[in-house]
């Protein structure tokens, strides 16, 4: 497969082959702009479908991969525009984040009790699959929560420095860290320790 494909080649090709040729390249482009893996994969999927429908517009003057990226770029921009209103919402410090599946019931008791994790930290530190799951869990949670958790736990930043950096109060930082830890804990329990 050459990097420069003609319009005719593209027209006659089995579009399913595009996925093997360009899928990973498009995904890494999307992931360099967002951490949420599911959304990134959604956008890649939409990109391929749009590319199929509008392949007649591919002029063959640029590389096919460049053309695909230009579609993806528009998809990403649309996504952030749609998210715009919801992003400010996610900075809200209310309890809305618990709504989908509350961790605690009305009496404040665990709805699902944490399990005991049997694993040695020494072995996990070296386990690449484990860190893949950790980064995916971080990618799945709201960005502003994952961000403080990264600073605090991965970079060992002091709470005070995080307050200064983000210009939020220390109680805001504590609440965000707490939520992030609850989410990470739950995610790891579902995706790794089960």
């Amino acid at each position: 497969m050459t990097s420069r494909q003609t319009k005719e080649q593209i027209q006659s090709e089995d579009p399913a082959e595009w996925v093997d040729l360009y899928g990973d390249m498009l995904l890494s482009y999307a992931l360099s702009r967002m951490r949420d893996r599911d959304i990134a994969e959604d956008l890649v999927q939409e990109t391929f479908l749009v590319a199929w429908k509008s392949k007649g517009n591919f002029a063959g003057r640029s590389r096919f991969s460049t053309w695909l990226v230009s579609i993806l770029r528009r998809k990403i921009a649309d996504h952030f525009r749609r998210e715009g209103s919801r992003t400010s919402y996610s900075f809200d410090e209310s309890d809305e984040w618990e709504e989908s599946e509350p961790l605690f019931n009305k009496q404040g008791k665990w709805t699902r009790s944490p399990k005991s994790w049997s694993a040695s930290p020494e072995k996990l530190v070296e386990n690449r699959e484990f860190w893949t799951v950790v980064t995916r869990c971080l990618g799945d949670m709201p960005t502003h929560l994952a961000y403080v958790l990264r600073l605090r736990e991965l970079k060992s930043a002091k709470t005070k420095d995080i307050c200064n950096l983000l210009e939020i109060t220390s109680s805001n930082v504590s609440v965000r860290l707490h939520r992030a830890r609850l989410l990470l804990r739950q995610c790891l329990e579902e995706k790794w320790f089960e």
Partner: protein
Amino acid sequence: MTCKHATLLLSESEERQLSSRERWGLRFHVVICAACRRFKKQLQFLRLLLSQASPKMLAAVYASDASLSEPRRQEIKTLLRRAAEGQ
């Protein structure tokens, strides 16, 4: 003290000194509540683990992770083939 409150204090104890009243309430709750005892252990576990994450490992994970998951790959192929057939 509820589990919800206890978990908040367990997490906050890593950020600030709890008041003696909070400390005692928490200590008592953790003694009687197995779920929060496990949560406490998990927090310590996570803290230890995350503090030891090597930047090299994380960089490698981010780089290698940029590959479509297999179910998704198949899903897109199916959708594209269907679109091609319906032409």
